[in-house]
């Protein structure tokens, strides 16, 4: 269930840099981060009560000219005692009182995993929860366990689909997992065969990975053994993935699948997978203005702000510090 802050609730949100806010992004946080029921109601979220890892609302106002950064007790909070770690950044004060103050409060979900929830104070002084948890997105696909044991079923049916290591080296093409956009997986010798990446190690065939455009091509059935995880709500909204059974997310690729047959029907999106965090430096690789044309009238580079698009968000970057100042929600 997704809750959003409606226009009526937040007042002049439409005039803000930040449109709507899918606060329910926190949904499911309790599964693996020990922060209890993270389902978030945007209205309730403003209460900022602890116990569910949400950020507390910051009532500060009138911080004219102030710039403050406060880091909470990172990694110490937990769902049971309801203690949230809060980070506060105050920027962009132009001397106009509350209307000029932008606050970004980043909640800690209680076990040291930051960025579970971000709350932005608009130029109109309205707090808005931004469902936002890039670490959660990055962790949605468990990297350590994603190599599937054995020989791919499609290859195992054929003779020599998975040759012994010595022969494999002679017959199969040797490829780095990085070539296919895969990173952070276990070491070993990798070979391409029939749309799969086969891993060989000292013990022989160590498992396999199905590949985009190969085993994960259009019409193929999603391998049941290839685990995929639900995307945060913001991404399902942005990429139009209404049916949780109708997509799979793995290795920075989102696939649409037939909910009944699990056959891949299309590739819905590629994600950079870059960890972009408010308050931290913008990662390398965003030197060029790349904001979608539909938003260029509002978000254009100036001496006081740069804007860059990545994975469904526009990020405001401070030109002087190169720190990410805010994330602009594009789901209306």
């Amino acid at each position, binding site marked *: 269930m997704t809750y959003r802050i409606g226009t009526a609730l937040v007042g002049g949100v439409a005039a803000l840099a930040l449109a709507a806010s899918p606060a329910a992004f926190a949904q499911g946080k309790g599964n693996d981060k020990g922060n209890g029921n993270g389902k978030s109601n945007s209205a309730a979220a403003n209460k900022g009560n602890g116990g569910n890892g949400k950020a507390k609302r910051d009532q500060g106002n009138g911080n004219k000219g102030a710039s403050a950064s406060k880091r909470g007790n990172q990694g110490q909070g937990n769902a049971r005692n309801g203690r949230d770690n809060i980070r506060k950044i105050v920027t962009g004060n132009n001397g106009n009182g509350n209307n000029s103050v932008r606050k970004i409060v980043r909640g800690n979900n209680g076990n040291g995993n930051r960025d579970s929830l971000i709350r932005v104070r608009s130029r109109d002084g309205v707090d808005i929860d931004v469902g936002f948890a890039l670490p959660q997105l990055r962790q949605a696909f468990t990297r350590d366990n994603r190599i599937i044991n054995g020989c791919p079923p*499609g*290859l195992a049916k*054929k*003779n*020599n*689909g998975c040759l012994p290591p010595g022969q494999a080296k002679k*017959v*199969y*093409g*040797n*490829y*780095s997992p*990085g*070539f*296919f*956009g895969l990173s952070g997986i276990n070491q070993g010798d990798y070979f*391409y*065969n*029939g*749309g799969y*990446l086969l891993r060989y190690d000292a013990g022989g065939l160590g498992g396999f990975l199905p*590949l*985009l*455009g*190969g*085993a994960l*091509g*259009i019409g193929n059935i999603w391998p049941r053994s290839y685990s995929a995880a639900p995307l945060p709500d913001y991404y399902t909204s*942005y*990429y*139009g993935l209404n049916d949780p059974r109708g997509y799979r997310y793995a290795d*920075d690729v989102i696939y*649409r699948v037939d909910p009944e047959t699990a056959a*891949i029907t*299309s*590739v*819905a*999106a*590629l*994600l*950079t997978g*870059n960890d972009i965090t408010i308050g931290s430096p913008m*990662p*390398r*690789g*965003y*030197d*060029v*203005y*790349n*904001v*979608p*044309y*539909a938003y260029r009238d509002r978000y254009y580079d100036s001496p006081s702000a740069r804007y*860059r*698009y*990545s*994975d*469904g968000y526009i990020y405001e970057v401070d030109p002087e510090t190169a720190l990410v100042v805010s994330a602009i929600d*594009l789901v209306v």
Partner: protein
Amino acid sequence: MKRFIANTAMAAALALTLTACGSEIEAENPGVEDRTGDTMADVLSDIGSVSTVASAFESTGLNGVLEGEANYTVLAPTDDAFGSLGATGETLLADEGYGAIVAAALREHMVPGALTPDAISQAITDNGGPVTMTSFGNSELTFAMDGDIITVTNGAGASANLTGETVVASNGAVLTIDTVLLDVSSLDLSPSTPE
């Protein structure tokens, strides 16, 4: 009646004026074609000089990402660029068994958001030298100026020039380039399918 005729004439004149001037995007970005009424998937398939890469997007299923809300820039090698890959390139594109390799190569030609040559050259100027953009492939892409020409180089050292068309779509941009950012000599293409 006279007023109707006058209004009609004015409307026609206005339409002619708008047509002559092109869109605001085209006015602000010389050399850029405005197709913001269409998706990237439509635009890519319409550019006659990049039919090979358009076909590759379709065969790998990656054209699906060009139909959605998210913005992408595709550095689209021309058909001539693919032709220069020779027999290896032909084999790569013709055999479905290599689909994953083709998909990986296409990802290397994709960048988040909408880039234009003007924005790239401006960034190079502002930076006082080459700039980088993350790609959806294996490496960052580095843009630099070679005289008046913008060059792009990937992490493996493959380089191309942005010398062709630039078309802006509703969800991104297509920038044509003259070389495929792929060293086919480094590919091991045997076998594509299990033996």
